[in-house]
Each structure stands twice: as C-alpha cells, then as structure tokens.
C-alpha cells in the first residue's frame, strides 16, 4: 500500500512506520463492509437533526430573500429615448367632454405629466386635464372588446357589426349613431363617408351637458346655428348669469386665462374689468365676482328680460313683454351701456329664451366682432338634445333597427326612461364605443374598447380657424382601438388612422398654409406645435348643409330667424316666464367632477370642491337661512324627490346661495366608472327635466324632507372666516388707485419698523444665498381658485391619495391647498347668517421661510435650509417626530400616517402595478412615518440648472416652471430667482401689493401674495397707463348714461 505524506516531518513519521492512527470515529480499519455500513448509517436522530437544520436553514434563507424587482435594460435603445431625460409631445385632449391643447411629458416611454401647450391662444389646464393622465393607466378601462360581456377579438366584432349593418341597410332599417360632438375634421370626413355608404345611419350628436339653447339663440338672432367664441379679455364689463364660465361652462380654461387678463394689475394696467355675477348658487365664477346678485332660478328670465328692455330702450330697439322685476340691476345696465363693444353678457342656462335675449343684449351692446365672435365659431358641444330625444323616441317605439353609441354615456347623462332602456335590448344591433363598461356600454351587445386619447391619433378643430393635431405618446396598453379605426375598417380604407389624418391635412389644410417647405415640413411642424392656425377656413363638405338649407327654406316661408324682429315677433313662444314655486332644485357641475366621466380618477375625487371644500361626495347644498328655517344641520341626510325619482343625500350649508334654491352636483353615483368612482355620491340624472326637447338643469320643483339620519362629509376646510386676521389682504380698485399699498399697510409697517428688529442673529442675510435664491409670488387677484395647481402638484410630486376617511381626519396629503374664506362688509355683520358673502381664494404651500420655524426644531436635522433658500426635506433622515408640523404656522407639512405606498388598504394608485407607471421617477415616493411638503419642485429646479450648465449659460428667468405655476391657466403663480434683479418674481416682490403671509412672525417667507383688488366702483376701465386718473363723479356717469 502506498504511503502518502504531506510534509517532511510527516515523511519522517511515515518512514518510521509511526503513521498516526485515524481517529476512532472515522476509523474503518478492521471492519467489514457491513460493519462500516452500519457504523455510518444515519439513524432516526440524525434524520431529525438534518430535517430540523434544513427546515431552519430554508426558513432563514427564504425569509431574507429580497423581492424581485423587474428592471430590464434596453437591448437596442429606441430612438429619442434617453433614460432619465423627458421628451415632450404636443397633443390634444378631445374626448367630447374636455378639450385642451396639451404638452405631454414622457419619461422612458411613459407619459407622466400633462402640461399646457404654450402655443395655444390661452394656454392652461384644469384639474381634469391634469388628472387625466391617470385615466390612461386606469385598470378599470376596457382591456378588450366584448360581445354580450364575453371577450371577442376586435376584428371579429367589427366584421360581425359590419355584416349586421349591411343587413340593416339592405332592410332599410334605421341605425342611430349617437356620438359626442366630433370636431375632428378628418373624423368628420370619415363619418360622412360612413353615412354615404350606409344611408340608413343617422348621426345624432349629443353632449354630456346640453348647450343647444345657445345655438338656437344664435339661430334666432343671427340665422346661424352656432356657438360663437367669447373674448372675456376684451370685455371691461362682464355679466355672468348662472354661467360658471371659470369653472365648467363651455371652455373654462380659456375663459379663465382671458378673464385673468382683465384682472392683472402687475403689468402697468391701472384698471380692472368689472365682473357682475347673477346666480342662484355659489359657483366658482361667483366667488370671483366683484359684485354678486343672488336670484331665484325662476327669476332669471325676468331679470334677463329687464336687462334686455333697459338696454333696448336706450339703443332704440323694440322691447319684449316681461313681468315686473324688482331686482335692482341699474348698476349693471349703466356699466354695460357705458362700455358698448367692451362688455360681455353670458348665461349658462339651457333655455332658448334666456339665451336669445342674452345674445340680443350682446348685439345691442355692439359686442359682436369684439367680445362675441360669431365668425369664429366654437365647435365643441355641437350636439342637440332635440335630435337625441327623437332618436330615443324612435328606438322606444321600435322604429330603429340598431344603435351605436360612441364616446358618450347617455344612460347616465340623459334621463332615459326604463321603457327606452328596455327597447335598446330588443335592437338588432347595439354597439358601444366606450373606454369603460359604463352605464350605457353595459346595456349594449357589442362593446368596442376605446383607446385613451394618449394612445390615439387624431385632429381637432375647436374653433373654426384653429386646427390641432393629436398624437399618441405611448403604445396601446391593452387591446383597444380608437373608434376611427372601426369606421376605416368598415369603409375599407387602407392604412391606419394616422395616414388618414395626414392625408386629410395634406389635401385640405396644407393648401391653406403658407411659409412651409413642403408638406412634410408642415406636418412635422404642426405635429410639433400641435396647433395650426388657418388663415382662412377651408371648405369642408358637409351633407348636413343641404339639410339645413332645406329647413331654412321651410322656415323662411313663415318667419325668418335672424334678427331682433324675429325675436320680438316670437317672444311668446320663446319667453316662458315662471313664477318661483317654493324650493327649486338646481343641478350643477362641480369644477373638478363635471359630468362624472372621470369619476374613477382618485385625484379628482380627492380634490376639494373649490367652493365647499368637500371631497369624495356630492350633497344637497342649501343656504344658511333655508337650513335654519327647516332645522337642517350640516351632514343631516335629506330625501330629495321629484317625479318618482328620489335620492338621499347629506346637507351642506352654503353661504351665498339663494334661500329657496337647493343644489346637487351631477357626476356622482356612477355605476360603471370603476371600482374607485362607483357608488360615490348619488346620481341626479333622474331629476333632469326635458323642456323644449332639451335637458334643463334648474327650476326642478323637487321636494325635500328630513330623514333623521346623518352622513359624514369630509371637508378639507371647516372654518370659513378669517377671524379678522389679515391673511388675505383685500382692497378696492378705487383705493388701490389712490394708494397702491392700500389694504397692505401692515406690510409697509413691517418693512419699515419690524423687518430689521430681532433679538437674535438669525434673519435674512443675503450672503447666505450666494447663487440663486428662489422665490414665488401669488397674485390673489388672478387666482380664481380653480384648483388645477393642486392636481398638478399631486401628479408631479407623487403625492398619496388617502381616501375620504383620512381626509375627514384632516390627513389629506396635498402639498398645495387653496384656502377659501368668506367675508362680509362690516356694516352687514349684524345679520347672523351671511347671506351674500364675498369669497377669497388663497393657495398655500410651503413658504420656504428663510427663518423657518420648522427647521430648528427637528432633532435630527432632517429639514435643513439650502443655499438656494429652499426649505428642504431629507426623507431618509426623518424619523417623524412631527415637531416641524406643529411649529409650521402655515400648517403645510404632511405626515405619512400609514404606508400609503405599497400599503394594502390604499388601493387608489400606489398599489397597482399599472397605475404606478404614472409616478414621476424624479421624485421619490415617501415611506410611512416621514414628513413631506412642497419642495418647490426641486427636481425641476435641478433639471433647469443642469440644462443651463450643460449648455454653458446662465439660467434664464422663467425657464424653470413649477408644476403649479405651469398648470395655472391665469398665470397667478410666478416663480423665479430673487437674486436676479431682472426676474419677474423680484419685481413682484417689490410690488406695493406684495406681502408675506404671517410675516410678522419673522419667518421671512420666500412666497409673497399680492393683495386682492375688487372693482367696487363704477370707474372707467382703461387699459392705458395713468390716462385719466380715474376721477369720475356721479354726474359724469349720468352724462355717459344719458
């Protein structure tokens, strides 16, 4: 046997034959094979030991396992995608509900933020546009097409529908295509082709909210059935009559931007537009009015008629017969007459008589072509309820063979009776083009899943001279198709819809374009800009024209619409005066919920209503006096019933509302919106009356009775007065003209007397901020309270949604909030119930104090001050003592009370793999137990600084825009570098109207507010600087009126 050795020492031992014995345990010497086997046989104990060890090891090993994170790098980098760098694409949100020309921020292939397109006439967004990005990732969207609830391939569905259409066409049976307004010229062309191929199809346009009274009014007066474009910026006197034009009416974003131009005192302008609001409920627009007159809904026509007659008397037109009206509107009349051609009267009521008189008032005031442009028509909301009603009637009577409902939800938005609904089930063909299984789609045989607007191609023509392009910014998430594809396929058009749009633009629009280097150049530039303004309106073939002509010819025989004579001759037919009849129910739209299309969007649900500040609910709002009389308290549940329809809703007491009016918002009580929106609030569709063939949303003689129940309402603000503190500083135009610091005297005192005085060394030291020093200015005169900034901030900064219960506990996470206060003239304070208060809105976010109370109390130094004047948050360092929250006088700090991120109970956004795609990768999501707050979009500041640095230049003023600033349609928020003497923000800091919120606490805030100035006097509106000095006597005014 060989001997092995390892070292010389061992060799010696081995050589001497003294090889050490193997230890006993492992020795096999002298044992037989069986014995060896037995010796090393594992016994039961060993087995158990091994079992125990391996179990313990397995448990230990698996419990330490990290969750698998999927991060797959690109193998081949897509063109234009640089990881970490955002691309921006222009597109259009044009879904029949909301319209906006937008810029989409796309990071790593994911659209994550909506910004306004600066090239639009009036750039801006509202809350719905801002929040709309989440609808793209909404998992409640239809992910495939279906037939009777079962999945079916889109191709198969289309061919089956086509076969049915052919069949019905051959049989000559009528098919209704009920669609929301199509303003896309190429889609219109496609639909014309469709109707030509299937003459049995009748297209019925219907809108979520009917505006057809305006069209009828203009037909009565001008002969053209149009909605004109309005110019609030050119109007020096604005009279809104139940029209929430800053919140919901027609095109609120554009109107807000226009309106703000007349309210801007920072650009040298020495006057303000005068805004009268005549309304029954407190609308967002009403909160901004200089003077607000409360009327009963039934009085509206009387007042409009009185206004009409007063102006007609002066302008020499025939008056209409109207009952006596005791509301004093002489001020309005005087102001309107003084500003002929510079005034604007609008009404939001869907009543042809009112709208006709309003159109007439504008005409008598020479506003046409100035503030009312009938040549540049507004192409949204072109639906007509009359035709929709007829269609439903035909379907109900079994006179239709099929129906296709496209991009609209009439079963929710229109009061459809059960018989009609049942008749839909008997149709040979029923198709819905819908993005979710909503109230209408769920009743249809075929449901074709719509793509989101961010996945679709298209174009739009919001005004007769403006064209916009819509481009997809992400590949389709699911098996969805835009409706246009259906029509192309049915018509056998080749190519995709993109090429169809392109062809249309090449053929129709390019000939009208000048200054482009070939069509490709035109196309690329238009696509980049998103907007193309035609110098002339291209002729478009509409078969409807012919029909209209026929109808006009018919009418000609009896009475020609178009002119004051027609109005006066037909006044009995047009003007239906009503007597107030006890309580009247008004159904209104909330600024952020509107018609309820986006009810499944938690950002919108959690956005406080700009007036009531209530979230996640609708309710019955009543005036304080009414509540007192009826013994109602906030949160009492009442039963509202009318015509067999009843809802039980809690009461919210709303100052400034008419005493006999009760109001409920539409857009709630959805049944097919999705898991988040369904069942929130109550639907009020059943209350909507059909008057004159049109949906009519007010003057509903509903009954209201107490139920004795209560219901919890979550409101972000429960205290509504300022307690005499100067938080929002206010003055009147007259006083401001005399002294620009009026109303803001305390700031002057602060500057002169207090600013330098301190016991401590801490204070503002310019040397602390050698580079940039960021600051922000908020013009309270321009802020309308529309709340677009709140959602923009929430989207940009990945702010958690917490749900109603948490909001009720005052744990809302919004970094930016808008405080709303009611105020009253001192001499009116004797009345215990505020009847017609004035309202102010004040956006409050972190003020980035240079002497911040929150900073010095943090024991772990988690919230230090940066060298650029920002109050920053180190989330990783924060242990959550919440001392900073207590010590913040503005209470803008927010605590993560639960794990809203990846916490099982909060299924709004963060806990859904797909919805999480909307998160901004530049902003960290916050863990449970840390404090967060406005960072002044530090990620945007950083991005701007890096861009300037890489381009080797100084940062330009206005280059960095914060999310709130960018979203704001009125430009109320300005951000900039206070160390740059040329910056806009430092100029605003020096404005005599500027003041710091709670500056007397010596917090040295980096945010200033500009005093709100109300136009209380009948002073001349003058855009020129210091022209007349604004001295007007009463006699002078009379003379003007003369």
């Amino acid at each position, binding site marked *: 046997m060989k001997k092995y050795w390892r070292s010389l020492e061992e060799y010696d031992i081995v050589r001497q034959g003294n090889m050490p014995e193997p230890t006993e345990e492992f020795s096999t010497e002298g044992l037989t094979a069986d014995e060896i086997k037995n010796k090393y046989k594992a016994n039961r104990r060993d087995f158990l030991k091994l079992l125990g060890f391996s179990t313990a090891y397995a448990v230990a090993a698996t419990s330490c396992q990290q969750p698998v994170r999927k991060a797959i790098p690109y193998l081949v980098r897509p063109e234009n995608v640089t990881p970490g760098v955002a691309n921006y694409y222009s597109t259009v949100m044009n879904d029949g509900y909301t319209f906006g020309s937008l810029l989409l921020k796309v990071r790593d292939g994911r659209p994550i933020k909506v910004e306004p397109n600066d090239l639009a006439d009036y750039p801006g967004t509202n809350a719905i546009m801002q929040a709309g990005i989440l609808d793209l990732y909404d998992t409640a969207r239809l992910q495939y097409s279906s037939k009777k609830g079962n999945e079916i391939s889109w191709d198969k569905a289309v061919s089956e529908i086509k076969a049915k259409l052919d069949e019905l066409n051959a049989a000559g049976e009528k098919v209704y295509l009920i669609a929301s307004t199509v303003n896309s010229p190429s889609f219109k062309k496609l639909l014309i082709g469709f109707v030509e191929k299937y003459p049995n199809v009748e297209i019925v346009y219907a809108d979520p909210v009917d505006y057809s009274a305006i069209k009828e009014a203009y037909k009565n007066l001008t002969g053209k059935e149009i909605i004109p474009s309005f110019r609030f910026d050119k109007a020096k006197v604005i009279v809104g009559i139940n029209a929430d034009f800053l919140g919901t009416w027609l095109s609120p974003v554009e109107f807000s931007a226009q309106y703000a131009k007349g309210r801007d005192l920072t650009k040298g302008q020495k006057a303000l537009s005068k805004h009268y609001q005549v309304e029954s409920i407190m609308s967002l627009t009403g909160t901004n009015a200089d003077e607000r007159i409360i009327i009963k809904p039934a009085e509206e026509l009387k007042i409009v008629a009185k206004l009409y007659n007063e102006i007609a008397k002066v302008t020499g037109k025939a008056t209409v017969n109207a009952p006596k009206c005791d509301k004093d509107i002489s001020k309005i009349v005087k102001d309107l007459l003084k500003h002929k051609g510079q005034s604007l009267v609008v009404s939001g009521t869907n009543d042809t008589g009112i709208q006709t008189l309003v159109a007439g008032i504008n005409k008598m005031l020479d506003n046409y072509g100035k503030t009312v442009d009938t040549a540049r028509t507004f192409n949204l909301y072109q639906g007509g309820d009359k035709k929709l009603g007829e269609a439903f009637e035909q379907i109900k009577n079994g006179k239709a063979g099929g129906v296709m409902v496209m991009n609209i939800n009439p079963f929710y938005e229109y009061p459809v009776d059960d018989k009609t609904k049942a008749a839909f089930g008997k149709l040979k063909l029923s198709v819905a083009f819908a993005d979710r299984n909503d109230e209408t789609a769920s009743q249809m045989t075929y449901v074709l899943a719509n793509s989101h607007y961010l996945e679709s191609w298209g174009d739009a023509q919001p005004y007769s001279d403006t064209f916009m392009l819509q481009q997809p910014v992400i590949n389709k998430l699911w098996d969805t198709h835009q409706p246009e594809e259906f029509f192309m396929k049915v018509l056998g058009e080749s190519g995709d819809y993109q090429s169809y749009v392109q062809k249309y633009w090449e053929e129709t629009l390019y000939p009208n374009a000048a200054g482009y280097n070939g069509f490709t150049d035109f196309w690329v530039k238009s696509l980049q800009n998103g907007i193309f303004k035609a110098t002339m309106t291209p002729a478009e073939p509409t078969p409807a024209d012919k029909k209209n002509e026929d109808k006009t010819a018919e009418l000609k025989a009896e009475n020609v619409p178009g002119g004051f004579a027609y109005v006066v001759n037909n006044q009995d037919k047009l003007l239906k005066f009503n007597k107030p009849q006890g309580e009247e129910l008004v159904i209104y739209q909330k600024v952020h919920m509107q018609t309820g299309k986006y009810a499944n969007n938690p950002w919108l649900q959690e956005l406080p209503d700009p007036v009531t500040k209530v979230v996640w609910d609708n309710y019955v709002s009543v005036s304080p006096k009414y509540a007192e009389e009826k013994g109602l308290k906030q949160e009492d549940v009442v039963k509202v019933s009318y015509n067999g329809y009843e809802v039980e809703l809690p009461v919210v007491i709303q100052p400034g509302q008419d005493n006999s009016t009760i109001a409920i918002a539409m857009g709630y009580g959805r049944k097919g919106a999705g898991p988040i929106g369904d069942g929130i609030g109550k639907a009020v569709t059943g209350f909507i009356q059909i008057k004159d063939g049109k949906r009519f949303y007010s003057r509903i003689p509903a009954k209201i009775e107490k139920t004795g129940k209560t219901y919890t309402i979550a409101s972000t603000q429960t205290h509504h007065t300022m307690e005499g503190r100067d938080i929002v500083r206010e003055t009147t135009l007259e006083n401001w003209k005399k002294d620009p610091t009026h109303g803001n005297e305390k700031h002057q005192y602060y500057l002169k007397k207090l600013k330098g005085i301190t016991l401590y060394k801490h204070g503002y030291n310019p040397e602390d901020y050698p580079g940039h020093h960021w600051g922000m200015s908020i013009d309270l005169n321009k802020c309308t309270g529309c709340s677009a900034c709140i959602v923009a901030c929430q989207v940009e900064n990945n702010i958690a949604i917490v749900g109603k219960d948490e909001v009720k506990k*005052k744990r809302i996470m919004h970094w930016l909030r808008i405080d709303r206060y009611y105020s009253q003239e001192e001499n009116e304070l004797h009345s215990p119930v505020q009847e017609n208060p004035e309202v102010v809105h004040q956006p409050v976010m972190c003020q980035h104090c240079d002497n911040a109370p929150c900073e010095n109390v943090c024991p772990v130094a988690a919230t230090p001050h940066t060298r650029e004047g920002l109050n920053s948050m180190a989330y990783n360092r924060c*242990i959550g003592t919440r001392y900073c929250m207590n010590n913040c006088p503005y*209470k803008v700090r927010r605590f993560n009370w639960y*794990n809203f991120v990846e916490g099982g109970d909060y299924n709004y956004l963060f806990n859904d793999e797909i919805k999480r795609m909307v998160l901004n990768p530049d902003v960290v999501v916050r863990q449970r137990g840390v404090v967060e707050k406005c960072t002044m979009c530090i990620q945007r500041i950083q991005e701007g600084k890096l861009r300037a640095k890489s381009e080797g230049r100084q940062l330009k003023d206005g280059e960095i825009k914060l999310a709130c600033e960018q979203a704001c349609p009125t430009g109320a928020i300005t951000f900039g570098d206070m160390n740059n003497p040329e910056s806009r923000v430092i100029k605003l800091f020096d404005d005599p109207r500027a003041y710091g919120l709670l500056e007397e606490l010596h917090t040295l805030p980096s945010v200033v507010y500009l005093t709100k100035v109300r136009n209380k006097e009948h002073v001349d509106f003058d855009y020129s600087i210091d022209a007349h000095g604004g001295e007007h006597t009463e006699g002078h005014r009379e003379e003007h009126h003369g």
Partner: protein
Amino acid sequence: MYKKEVRGELILGNKSYGDITKDILRHQEAGAKTPLWWWIAFIISFILMSIGLGYFVPLTIAKGIGIWGNNNQTAWGWAIINFVWWIGIGHAGTAFSIFLLVLRQKWRTSINRAAEAMTIFAVLAAGLFPAIHVGRPWDEMFIFPYGPNSRGLWVNWNSPLLWDVIAISTYLTTSALFWYIGMIPDFATIRDRSKGLKKKIFHALSLGFVGHLKTWRRFEDAVIIIGGLAAPLVISVHSIVSTDFSVSVLPGWHETIFPPFFVVGAIFSGFAMVLTLMIIIRKVYKLHEYVTDDHLDAIARIIMFVSLIMGSAYLIEEFIAYYSASPFEKHVFLEMYLKGDYALPYWGMVIFNAFVPQLFWFKKIRRSLLALFIISIIINIGMWLERYNIVIPPTAQDFLPANWGEYSPTKVDIWIYLGTLGLFGVGVLLFMRFLPIMAMNELKQQAKRQTSLTVEKSVYDIFEKKLIK
C-alpha cells in the same frame, strides 16, 4: 432641621429599631401572605399593561401612527399629553426626596422611598411615549449624538426634542441611582433577615453593606452628593420638557412662563400622586404610625401653596394674552379657553387645580383621609386637563383659520394610556410587595432623633435577635 416642637413626633408609637424593621418588612418577610387586594390590583394592572403596551403599542409600530387620532393640524395628541403628565408625576419623587433632603426636612423619611419608586415607574411610562410616538421608531437612533458617526450626520442641537432625550435619560438614570443607593442599607437588613435565594439576591443588591461606621459615612456622603446633583435635574427636566412647547411659534405654546410653570405643575401633580400613593400604603399596610396625619397635613399644605402658584400662572397667561394684543394669542386664551370649543377642559383645569386644593385651608379637610384622597385624584385629573389644554387647542386652532380642525383620540390612544397606568400599577405593586417601602435606616435615625431611645433598648433588641436565632 428637625425640631420636635415644630414638627411634632414623626414616628408614633415609641418604636424601637426592631419594631421599625418588623413593621416595614412585615409584608415581604418569609411567611407573609400576599394579600388578596394585591393580587386583584396586580392582575388588573397587568391586564391593562398587557393590552395597552403588549398589543396596541406593537400594533402602532406595525401599522403606523395613523391608528391614533393625530392629524396634520394636531400632529401631537394624547401621546404627548400623557408624556408630559407622566413626567410631571415622575417629578415628585425626586423633588420630594431631594429637596427635603437638601433642606434637611426630616419628615421626608417615611415617604421618600415610595415617592422615588413612583418616580422611576412614572418616568418609564413617560419615556415610552416619545419612543413610540415617532413615525419611524426603527430609526430612533438618529436622535442620539453617538460617537462613531458612520452616517456623517450630526443631530440638531437647536431642537428641544434633543434636549428632551438627554434630560429625560439623565433624569431617569440619576433618579434610579438615587433610589437604589438609598435602599442599600435596607437591602442589607433584608439580607440579614432572609435565607436561601432571597438572601443571595439581597446579598448582591446590598453590595456588601455591613454597617461599619465607614460604610455608613460613605453611604451618607453618596446620598447627599447624588441628591445634590439630582436637585438641579428636577428643575431642568421639566423646564426642558416645557421648551418643547415654548421654543415653538404657536400661540399658546410660545410663552416664556412655561419652564417655571411646568416645574411647578410637575411638583403639584407629583405631590398629589405621592399623596394618593401614601394614603393607599398607609391604609393597606397599616403604617399610620409612620405616615402620620401630620405627614399628610404637610403634603396638603405644600399642595395648597403650589396650587396658588398654578392659579396665578393661569391668570398671568390670560393677562399676557390680553396685553399682547396679538390676535392669535387672544384667540387661544380669550376665545378658545374661556368660552370656545375648549372651555370645558379649561375651566375643569382651573377649578381642579386652582380652586379645589384651596379646600386645604381647612384643617378638617387636611386631616380627612377620604378628602385628601379624593382631592389628590382630582388634582391629577386637573393636571391631565392642563396638559390637554396645552397640547391640543393651540395646534387645533392656530394662525390660519382655514386649517382649523378638531382632534379626538382613538381607542388605541386610550388603550396605550391605560397601558401606561397598568405599567405604573404593576411597578408600584411589585415595589410594595418585594422592596422596603420605607427607608428603614432613615426611620431609625429619625426614631433615635425624636425619642429618648436608650442604648439599653437597642442592646436589648440585639440580644433579642440573637436569642431568636
């Protein structure tokens, strides 16, 4: 300085050293039966502690502070009220013991031990709240300025919360040390009188104390030195707790009166708690010869005096708020407290703290055990209300009315509070059962001082002991 003619007899019944030892240790000597009331009280306290601290505290840590009633407006809620309240109670023991020691007030001797024990458990209960109140308790070490600073970040010395951590931990350590050192001779007594395991435990605890003259001297030096060191801590700890509020900018918090006001309030609540506890101990252990009516009378007089200070502090707060003309201050003090949403707790506080103790002007009430007991409880409720008024209203309605909100605790808040009461109860009951509830060595000194005990009697004691053995 003890003067018999002023203070009277502090130990009644002409006790011998042996009597004192027997009386104090009766309940924990071998063969003593644990009484039924003890078991009932212990089980109740233990259940409260188990539910409050054993279930709801881990639940808070698992789920988040969201299960409490706190909100973005009132970011501190019950936890901080209870923290300040317990700290206040935790004041009394050391204040009682040390101030009276330094002032050589000999009537402290029969009370100081229990008061010190109470301090320890109250401070433990108090310390729990800041620990579980933070959002991320697992990162709490960030708050300690510890040396090997691998995080490259230092703490913020400007923050009162950091002062708090240091003040409370110092106070807890010093109080515990003071309590322990004071017990050493008594441990030695127990050691000498017990057998088996108990003897071993007390042998270790008594640190080899044998009663040499030298040992006695060092012991007394140690007690007086630690007492002297601890005396400023008594002032500092609640002053620092008060800076949690007074350093802030909130109306109702930003007050220069707070440090003395808090210290006085703490002594007030602490003395009331001492009173409660001593009445119970005296009653259940039948120690009325050691805790005499004169003792309770003295405590009641102190409470009455402190109550006057409290009342004037309340008045000064109101006056300054009026005089400041600050709308924010005026809102808190003149609106919210006097007639607004918080009038009930405010007036409750004023009546309980400033008026009710004035009943002690009457000797009859000072001498009535029941009245003393009820008033001592009322004072502790009043002091809880005071902390409620300090913590909640100023945050609930501060500068911007748009933020104003309400605060209400959840059941978790309430259970954790009950849990700390249970913890306190368990601690005190264990102390009553297993440790010398009065400082025997000091009582004996006192006994010697006040009576003409003869050497013979002492010698007789020793003989008797030997004979028994």
